């Protein structure tokens, strides 16, 4: 007999891209069967989903947790709670901590901390170069052995093409995935918003969106040269998309992601210097936002992530140029993404292709799909339920969300990791 039967659920299947009523059975932490509407099987526990959506849990690629170094901003315990409340069943952490996660010893430390405190699955990315300073590659082999799922210097660009190409060649020989941040740093230096009318009006230093394409063009050239497995953390501008499309068409092992804030906000949201809307890369024009949404819909951009970046009040209560970048997103990723569904830009199955299936596939994880014998990492949610976000209620230690007071739709009714409910405290 199965452990759990989820019945009367709207199954959101990102593999077959279907959205239909049915049921799922779970045993020993794994999905055992997908049942059609009307079918049933005996189970110890039966959950009536009441027609709500049941989808593979979100795999959030690129989450910053403040351990080590900035535990006052976010710990594994609070990040885990925020993830569970937001339907995120796998957190993929970034190595841009203080100190950077660039040795197997540091990686083992954070893995132990995550194991002890987080209620959801946690995978770790490691730095590509020591100290993320772009001079010397990390011990990629040892880090892989210690469990690193990908290698990235976060928002630091390895400016020296020779050093970068060596790291890529070495990573390639070990089959490691490298994640790049595409930005020409000599063009973007000192900027805090995207150049254009808004930047000029506010008197803020702006970066031309072409800096992103320059970074992408360079990285793609190096991927062509080295054959490494490569993923772009965030593509946020229309003018970078043709280069990405060409790289994929030419058969390079390249994928791309985008942060949820660049899909739901634009440069004008900064308004009167609101620092919770400061991001790196900065928010873009409305034309860019729409183009990037279309690229997610078509599958050109593979992954949507939260780019969860907790910042304390002190880092944000500063003049715009001096304030820290980034926003928390674990808990708001799903309702913010559902804005795209409600606006008619994308279907629910395609949304979960970008939220769950594609990141899992890219990282070699067997979750992210509704298929028998895969982990029962599931999120049950009401896609329509409206609410007004109150940042003080967020589970994250840091409350720096741009959605404070925003009207959102989509509430999580339950999150299960390996068949175990994790969203009840």
């Amino acid at each position, binding site marked *: 007999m199965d452990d759990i039967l989820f019945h009367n659920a709207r199954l959101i299947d990102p593999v077959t891209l279907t959205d239909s009523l049915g049921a799922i059975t779970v045993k020993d932490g794994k999905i055992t069967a997908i049942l059609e509407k009307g079918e049933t099987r005996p189970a110890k526990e039966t959950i009536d989903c009441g027609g709500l959506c049941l989808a593979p849990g979100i795999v959030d690629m690129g989450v910053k947790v403040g351990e080590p170094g900035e535990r006052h901003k976010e710990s594994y315990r609070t990040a885990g709670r925020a993830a569970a409340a937001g339907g995120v069943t796998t957190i993929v952490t970034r190595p841009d901590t203080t100190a950077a996660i660039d040795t197997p010893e540091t990686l083992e430390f954070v893995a132990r901390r995550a194991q002890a405190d987080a209620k959801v699955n946690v995978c770790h990315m490691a730095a590509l170069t020591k100290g993320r300073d772009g001079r010397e590659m990390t011990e990629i082999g040892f880090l892989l052995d210690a469990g690193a799922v990908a290698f990235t210097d976060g928002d630091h660009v390895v400016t020296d093409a020779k050093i970068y190409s060596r790291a890529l060649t070495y990573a390639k020989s070990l089959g490691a995935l490298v994640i790049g941040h595409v930005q020409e740093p000599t063009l973007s230096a000192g900027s805090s918003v995207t150049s254009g009318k*808004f930047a000029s009006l*506010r008197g803020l230093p702006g970066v031309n969106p072409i800096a992103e394409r320059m970074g992408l063009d360079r990285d793609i050239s190096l991927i062509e040269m080295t054959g490494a497995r490569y993923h772009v953390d965030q593509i946020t501008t229309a003018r970078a998309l043709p280069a990405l499309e060409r790289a994929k068409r030419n058969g390079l092992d390249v994928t791309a992601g985008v942060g949820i804030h660049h899909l739901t906000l634009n440069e004008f949201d900064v308004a009167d210097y609101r620092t919770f809307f400061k991001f790196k890369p900065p928010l873009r024009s409305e034309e860019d936002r729409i183009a990037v949404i279309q690229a997610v819909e078509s599958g050109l951009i593979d992954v949507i992530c939260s780019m969860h970046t907790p910042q304390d009040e002190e880092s944000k209560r500063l003049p715009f140029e001096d304030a820290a970048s980034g926003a928390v997103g674990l808990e708001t990723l799903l309702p913010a993404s559902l804005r795209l569904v409600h606006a008619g830009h994308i279907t629910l199955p395609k949304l979960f292709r970008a939220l769950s299936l594609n990141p899992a596939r890219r990282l070699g994880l067997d979750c992210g799909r509704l298929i028998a014998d895969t982990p029962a990492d599931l999120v049950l949610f009401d896609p329509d339920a409206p609410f007004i976000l109150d940042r003080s209620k967020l589970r994250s230690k840091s409350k720096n969300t741009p959605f404070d007071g925003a009207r959102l739709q989509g509430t999580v009714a339950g999150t299960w990791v390996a068949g175990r409910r994790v969203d009840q405290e």
Partner: protein
Amino acid sequence: MTFNAAHLLGIEHLHPTEITTLLDLADRYAEESRQGIQHKDVLAGLTQINMFFENSTRTQSSFELAGKRLGADVMNMSMATSSVKKGETLIDTALTLNAMHPDLLVVRHGASGAVDLLAQKVNCAVLNAGDGRHEHPTQALLDALTIRRAKGRLHRLSIAICGDIAHSRVARSNIMLLGKMENRVRLIAPPTLMPSGMQEFGVEVFEDMREGLQDVDVVMMLRLQKERMDGGFIPSEREYFHRYGLDAEKLSYAKDDAIVMHPGPMNRGVEIDGTIADDINRSVIQTQVEMGVAVRMAAMDLLARNLRAKRAAQTNVAV
């Protein structure tokens, strides 16, 4: 009389009637100052703090003089040598000052938006004396008053703003003010010193100075902000002067009665030829300085009236 603002943070949020109200009052103060009429009662009993995070001689002394002429107790804080150096944040500085209950706070800061941020945290009236590359509202107002007095009106004029627009808060405030008052604004700058998207502000953009100056009523020169440049905006000062410096030949393209303005301090021989700057028939640069004091008197007077009204309303509620 219409002037409802609690702070003077920028031109962006002012209504044309508020601008006119302020200029009318400033005009009166300018006249009365010339006649030696004193108004020590207007700000009597109020404390004005000048908080300059960036060094300034001209603007700070202009605000100081304006406050003193209206009877305020004026205090200058040079923030470059204060607790800011010890790591205090802008907001903590604001809260500390606020606890001393000032009435008028005049602030200059190097970061765009910093004065807005500070205004959110204090209970007094805040005047922006320049924030980063964002706004410098009293400069735009004194320029407007100077133009109005010289030309007899502040609408349907053709006005060229020339030079380092990218780094200039003066340019931004002026573009907004002159646009609100329905003038034709032309911007002239080398493309490296022209911010992107300026066409969308309802102005005309020129790279050729002679073309841009054609038949204008007012020529407003900007200072080349060498201290804000981190390299490579212009090839050299002498080439800049050759192509964008205002001399008699280039000025001849403007109307015969066109006036020449400059917010100071001037780089003679870089953006403006010395003889043009000193030509009493064309240059109104000294008038600008005089109007600066009058405009700041008017701004502080109006803000103080609103502040007193607000406090009176609060007291009534409390009773």
